[in-house]
Every structure is written in C-alpha cells, then in structure tokens.
C-alpha cells in the first residue's frame, strides 16, 4: 500500500509541472493587468512602471514563469500584488473556511445522498422510490445561490433559527452546508441507487437472502459496501469542488473562502494570487483522486491485491 502511494506520488511530479504551466499561462491570457487595480486616481505613469518593475511584470512571460517556478520549488508562492501579503498566508487564512464548508457540505450530501439512495433502491419501483428520487431531483434543480437566499428567508428571517450569514460558529454553517450540499445529494443518491440495484442483482445477494438474513442487513452490510466503490470514485474526483466550488454560497452567506479569494484575485488580475490558488486547487484535485484510489483499494480487496 505504501509503495503504491509512493509510486503515485512520484507520478505527480510531471503532472505538477504541466499544471503549473497551464495555470501560469492561462491567467496571463486574460486581458487587463493588476497595476490598474493597484493605482488610484492621481498616480503618475512613473509609478506604474515602478510597480511593474517591483513585481517583475515588465519582463517576458517566459522569464516570469521561470522566476515563479524557481520560487515555487523553494516553497514560495510569491506575494499578492494587490493585497501585498504572501500568497501562502492568504491561502492559509481562507482555506479553513473552505474546508469547513466543503467538508460539511460533502458530508451532508454524501450521508443524505447515500441514505436516500439506499432507501430508494430498497423500494425500487415503488411510490417511495418515486417520491425520494423526485424530491432529490427537485433539490438539484435550483441553482445554489438561489437556494441560499431562499433558505435565509425561511430559516433565518421567518423562523429565526439560525443567523442570516457569517462564518461564526456551527449555527452559521447550517444553511450554507445545505445550500452547497443539496445539489450533490442528487449525484450521490443517483449513483448509490443504481449501484445498489445493480449489486442486488448479483448472485451473492441471492445467496445472502437464501441464508435467511434480514433484508436490511443485506442492504446495509453487503450491498451498500459494494455500492460505495463508485460513490467513492465520484466523491474523490469532486475534491476540487469541495475547496473552490462554493463561490456562490460564500458570496450569499458572506463567508470567506478560497473560491471567493480566487475570484477576487482573478477580477483584479492578481497574478501571483490566482496562480497560487489555482495551483493549490489543482494539486488538491490530483491528491483527492489519489486518496480516492487509495480508499477504493482499501475498500475492495481485489484492487488491493493487484496493487500491493
């Protein structure tokens, strides 16, 4: 297992290089530059040159890339042009919020999705199945920013159960979690349901029934375990979404986060910050896929064998 992980990590190096290249040049393709966002009314052209020089923006792109890469390899993500703070510090400040919401939403959508998927699969083809699938479907048809506002209206304004917005304490996490997670439920539930149904068609399930095991034990202890493999795959590939996908939610609920940081940076063409955030996201995504593989291998003894 450790060997497998190590080999996969080594494979990450070229990927990292490619990603860094893509990330760097993509952001420089976007028109506009950060200096305009730095200068205010009244400043002079000399000042502009001075700032360009300070951040190396006056040099060629290739040169800039290698400087950036050089720093990167020594662990330095650079300094935000607009905010004047180290990129790593800015990410470190925002990351916990993203993680908090991302993980909560992921847990919410996974747990609810799996539960719904299991129930729907167990009652496959009946009213219960229809109602659950329909309900979940409805939840996923509403854009999350929209849902966020409606949730605030109902639960914070009318009912007053939770704060309207902010990122203080668990109570302020409830609504964003629901708004961010609701769309994911449909995905998880769908995959779970189909995987459960397919698994229950297999011979070993028939044999489990033939052993006289109660159906819910069969569903939970055996079928679900098999159904979790594709669910884990899907989830591991969505790790980027966990970290940076909640932009609209962050906006509506006035929460800080990586997504918002990145979008603001993008709007201001704060190159080092955009590059840092994107690279971090990309790495998280790749590592997420890796973790997914490992978890999957841990779950499925056949894969463990092949990879050991």
């Amino acid at each position, binding site marked *: 297992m450790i060997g497998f992980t190590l*080999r*996969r990590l*080594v*494979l990450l190096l070229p990927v990292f290089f490619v990603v860094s290249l893509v990330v760097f040049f993509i952001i420089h393709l976007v028109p506009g530059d950060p200096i305009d966002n730095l200068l205010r009314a009244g400043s002079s052209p000399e000042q502009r040159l001075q700032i360009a020089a300070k951040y190396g923006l006056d040099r060629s792109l290739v040169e800039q890339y290698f400087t950036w890469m050089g720093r990167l390899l020594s662990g330095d993500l650079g300094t935000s042009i607009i905010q004047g703070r180290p990129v790593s510090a800015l990410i470190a400040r925002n990351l916990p919020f993203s993680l908090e919401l991302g993980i909560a939403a992921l847990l919410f959508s996974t747990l609810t999705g799996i539960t719904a998927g299991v129930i729907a699969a167990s009652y496959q083809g009946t009213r219960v199945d229809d109602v659950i699938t329909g309900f979940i479907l409805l939840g996923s048809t509403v854009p999350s920013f929209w849902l966020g506002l409606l949730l605030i209206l109902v639960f914070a304004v009318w009912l007053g159960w939770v704060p309207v917005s902010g990122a203080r304490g668990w109570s302020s996490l409830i609504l964003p979690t629901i708004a961010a997670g609701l769309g994911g439920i449909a995905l998880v539930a769908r995959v779970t349901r189909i995987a459960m149904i397919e698994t229950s068609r297999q011979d070993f399930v028939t044999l489990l029934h033939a052993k006289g095991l109660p159906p819910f034990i069969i569903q939970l202890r055996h079928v679900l375990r098999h159904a979790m493999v594709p669910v884990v795959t899907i989830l591991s590939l969505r790790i980027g979404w966990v970290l940076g996908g909640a932009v609209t939610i962050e906006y509506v609920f006035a929460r800080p986060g990586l997504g918002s940081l990145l979008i603001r940076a993008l709007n201001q063409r704060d190159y080092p910050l955009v590059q840092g955030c994107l690279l971090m996201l990309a790495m998280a995504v790749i590592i997420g896929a890796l973790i997914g593989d490992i978890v999957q291998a841990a779950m499925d003894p056949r894969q463990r064998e092949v*990879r050991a």
Partner: protein
Amino acid sequence: MSDLLTVNGLSRRFSDGGLFRKRKVFHAVSDVSFTLKQGEILGVVGESGCGKSTLARLVLRLINPSEGQVQFDGVDMASLSRGDMRRLRQRMQLVFQDPYSAIDPRYSVRDALLEPYRVQGVKPKSTDETVASLLDMVGLNSSLAQSYPHQLSGGQKQRVGIARALALNPSLVVLDEPTASLDVSVQAQIVALLERLRQELGLTYLFISHDLGLVRYFCDQILVMYLGRIVEVMPSGAAPAHPYTRALLDSTFEPDPKRRRSITRLAGEIPSGYDLPPGCAFANRCPRVTDLCRQVLPTLTSQASGHQAACHHPLTAVPELAVEQRSVA
C-alpha cells in the same frame, strides 16, 4: 492431403503491470506445434484458461505470437502486410463460443451476414439471394433475415455466426467452443450442421472444446492442452497416455446409470500461469508424479503412430494404475 495449417513453436505471453508496478508474465500458450491437413478436424481440449482461445487467436493472427510461426497454406503469416493479412482472412474464419455476443445487437441478421462482404470490399451478386442462400445453408428460414439478435434463440444465433463465417468461402474454420453455451439438444443440431457443412464445402476445422466426449466423437485428431502446453496428441479413438488426459476422461459423466463408476480424485490445485513450476505443470496433481517430473519438463514423445504424449511416465508404459479411487454411488 496437403497441410493447410502448420504451427511451429507458437508461444504467447501476456505481461501485466507497468512503469511502476512489478511486472508479471503470464504464459498463455507455450511452444505449441501441430499441423492440420486439408479436410481434417483437429480437436483441442483442455480446461478453462489453458490457452485454447489464445491458440485460436494466434492461429488466426488476431493477436501476434511472442514466438513461433503459423503457416497458412504454405505462407508464413508474419511475412504478410496488413492489407494482405486482411485479405487472407477471407480464407480462415472463426466461430465463437458465445453466440449471444458474437453479433452486434444493432445488426439485423441480414446486416451481419453482409458484413463480411462489406469489410472485404466484395460485392455479392444479389444481396437478397446471398442472404437467403446463407441462411438456407445453415438451416434457417430466410424470413429471419430482418430479425435482430435478441429475437433469436441461442442455437439460431450460432447458426447465423456459422453462416457469417462461411460467407466468404473460407478453407479453414476455427470453432472456439461453438456449443459450450448451448443446450445438449441444440449442441447436437449444431454438431450435425458442422458435419454436413464440412462434407458439402470441404472445410477444415480446428475444433476447440472442453468436452473430451464431444471432441472424441467429432474429431479425427485431438490435442490436449494443459496450462498452455500440449500434453498429448492423439487419434480420436486411442486410449490416453497422459495421466491428465486420463483424468479428463474419468471426470466425464457417462449418461448411463448402469455405468456409474469411480472417479479419479485429483489432489492439488491448478497452478497459476504466472508462476509455473519448472517441471511438468501437472506434477502437483498427478498420481504418478516422481521427482523427475518436478524438475524436468517432459517433451512430446511418440507413443504410437500419430500418438504423442509429454509425460515421463506415460500410461501405456505402466498399465496398472495406483490411483485413489472412490465410488460415487
């Protein structure tokens, strides 16, 4: 009769793993040689995974051998260009074990039967007639031409498969367990059909099966394979010389309750093709095993005319069997 097919030292290995994983080599077919005369039926028997299908694919060059040559009608297939090889395929055809998946579910019987012509760029005189005569040849009603595979029974599908194989007038037909997934009553129909076609069209068959009884019934000559190697080559009626062939024979159930008899219990498990023992692959299950068997790989040696076995202690040499025997009933 001339040699239609000559196979010489054919081997095929599959390797597993990659850049960062430990490489494992699987010996699917090892050092197989035989010749097949025009008009003959050569049977290949062996248990699942012993390399029968791989051999079939090698013979038809659907996959490339790791070593060895295949000569078809005197031509070494390795020397052919891609285009020539594709053209040569007209003369050798394959019928599959699983008729259920041998036809594209989106193709009607008619489409399937015309595909050989399309692929080879041959224009049949009249498509309708061609389809009708092919169906007739395999004993199907021409009204089935518009049917899709899911509307046919297994036996019907297999007949379509055979008709498709025969569309381009091949000389050699490789039959890869053509009846394995069919019921006995259907199997009998198909076998009878194959026999009739062989006589009418002068076909040569390479007939693959795991059913020794069927092979002995249908074939002139039998190759017995075990873990990728030929362990015995024998005329259809001969008594087996290799203990493995013996075991195979003993394991078949005679459909006659009066002849209930003891079954040879083989000890041990079939070794994996990944880590083959140095000696005889059957050594760990063989009742006649000696140290020699475990260390030295036996080669095919002649037992009688047209009968060879790869065994250090062939059965004809020692008539008495010291085998654990148990009665079934």
